[in-house]
C-alpha cells in the first residue's frame, strides 16, 4: 500500500494546531479551552510521530508518549483549579474571572 507522504501529516497537524488556537480564542468556558489546548498538544504529537516514522527514529515517539502523559497530569491539575473556581462562583466563564487588571 502506498506511503502517505510526510507533508500531508504535517499539514493535518498544522490544521489541528490552528483549530486548537482558534478554539482557545473563541471559547469562554475553561473546560472547552482546555480541550482546544489538548488539540494543539496532539497536533504536536502527530507531527512528532510523523517525523519519527520519516526518520525511523524512536525519540519522536518517546516525546509523543511523554506529551500524552504530561497532558493527562496537566488536565487533572487544570480541572482541579477549575473546580476550585467553581466552588466560589456558580459558573466558570473566564470573562467573569477578571478581578485583577491594569
Amino acid at each position, binding site marked *: 500500500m502506498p506511503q502517505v507522504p510526510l507533508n500531508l501529516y*504535517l499539514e493535518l*497537524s498544522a490544521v489541528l*494546531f490552528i483549530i*486548537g*488556537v482558534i478554539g*482557545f480564542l473563541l471559547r469562554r468556558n*475553561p473546560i472547552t*479551552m*482546555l480541550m482546544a*489546548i489538548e488539540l*494543539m*498538544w496532539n*497536533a*504536536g*504529537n502527530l*507531527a*512528532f510521530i*510523523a*517525523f519519527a516514522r*520519516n*526518520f525511523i*527514529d524512536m*525519540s*519522536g515517539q*518517546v*516525546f509523543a508518549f*511523554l*506529551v500524552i502523559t*504530561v497532558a493527562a*497530569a*496537566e488536565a487533572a*491539575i*487544570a480541572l*482541579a*483549579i*477549575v473546580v*476550585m*473556581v467553581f466552588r*466560589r462562583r456558580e459558573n466558570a466563564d*473566564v470573562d467573569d*474571572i*477578571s*478581578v*485583577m*487588571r*491594569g
Partner: protein
Amino acid sequence: MTIQGVNFDFGILGPISVLVITGLVVLLVDLVGRAVPRVVLYGIGVAGCAGAFIALAPLYGRSATTVNGAFATDRFSWGFSAVLIFTLAVTLLLSSLRNADDGNSPASYAALLIFCTIGGLIMAGATTLIGIFLGIEELSLALYVLAGTGYPRPASEEAALKYVLLGSLASGFLIYGSALLYGSAGSVSLSALSAAASSLPLLFVIGFGLLLVGLAFKLALSPFHLWTPDVYEGSPIAITAYMTVAVKAATFAVLARFVYTVFGHDSVALVPLWLLAIFSMLVGSFGALRQRNLKRLLAYSSIAQAGFMVVALSGVGEYGLSSLLFYLVAYALMNLGAFAVIAMLGDGDEAYADIDAYRALFYRRPWVAVALTLFLFSLAGIPGTAGFYGKVLLLEQGFAGGPWGIALALALIAGSIVSIYVYFQVVWAMFVPQEGEQPVTAGNSWLTWVPVAVGVAGVVALGVIPQVFVSIVSSSM
C-alpha cells in the same frame, strides 16, 4: 550505574536525587506523624537544599553528561542550579511565616515547591528537547497549583486559572515548535540542531520561533507577558518571589544553552529574541510607572529585568554567560530580599502589598526600610550595589555585541531611566515624613531576617567587591 543500556551517574544527578528524596521524606513525615508543625517540614526542606548544595559542590567547574548524554552538568547548568536551590531555600523560609499559605497542607506545599525546583534543575541540565519539555512541564504544573495556594483570596484562584490556561497554551506552542525542530534536524539533541541552525531551513525557523514563544512566555518577555502581573499579584508572596527568580533562572539556562550550542556566534538568527527583549524592557519599565501595588510593580519590573538579562547574550560573547549569571545572582539577591521584606512586614499576608502602607516606614522600622531601600537601589542600578555592577557587565556585552547589541544596550539605558521613578517612588514613600494610615500588622520574624540579611550582605558585597563573584562565576564554566 547502568540500567537497560541507560547509564546513570548519580554524582551528576546528585542535587536532583537529594531533592527528590527530600520531597518524598517531607510527604512521608506528614503521612506518619499527625499535625506535624509546618516549621519542621520546611526545616526538612531547607536541610534538603543544604544537601543539594553539598551534592552540587563537587560538580563545580566540571563538565560531563549522563543518561546517554541527555543530561549534563556544565557551564550552563551549575550556576543556574545553585540559584534555583538558593531560591527554594529562601521560599521555604518565607512560607514559614504565620499568615502564609493558610488552608493548605504544608507538606504538599513544600513537596510541590521542591518538585518544582527539580523541574528547574532538569531544565538547567537537559541537553535534549525531551528533557527541556519534561523540566518545563514539571516546573509549570507545580507552579499552577502553588499559584492557587493563596486560597481564601479570590485573586489567588484567578491567578491559578489564568496561569494554567495560558501556560498550557504556551506549552502547546512549545511542543509544536519542538516537533518541527525535531523534524528539521532528525534528532532531539541540541547539538544536532546546530547543523540545521547554520542554514536556517523553513522548518527550523518556524520550529524555533514557536519554541521561542514558549520560552518567552516563561520568561514573561513582552508581548507574552500579560499573565505576569495578574499571576504575581494573585499568588502568595512566597510563591511570587519564587516565580520571579526560579522560573527565570531555569528558562535562561535553557535559552543560554540554545544560544551557545545551537546558534554559536550567529546573532542575526536570534533577532526575534532581541526584539522581544527590547520590547520587554520598555513595556516593563513603563508599565511599572503607575503601579500602587508593590507585588504588581515588581511583576512589571521583572518583565523589564528579563529583558535586561537578555542583553548579556546579545554578543554571544565569551563573557556573555558569566555576565548573565552574575546579573541573575544579583537579581535573585535583590528581588528575593525585596519580597522577603514585603512578606516579613505583612507576616506573610498582603498587608504590605500596597505602597501606601510604606508611608514613613523609615520612621517606624528604620532598619527594614533601609534594607528595602538597598534592594530597590540595586534594582534601579544605583552604584555600590549588585545591580549596578550587573548592569555594567550587561552593558559591556551589549556595546560589544554589534548593532543589535548596541540597540539592546541603549534600550537598557532607556528602560533604566524610566524605572528610576518606579523604584524611587517606594523609597519616597518610606522616607517622606508625613504618616500614612497605620498598617495592619508589622511582623518581625527572625526566620525572614535570614533572607533579608543574606540579601543585604550579598547585594553590598556584589556591588563593592564584585571581583570575587565574577571569578567564582567565570571559573564555574
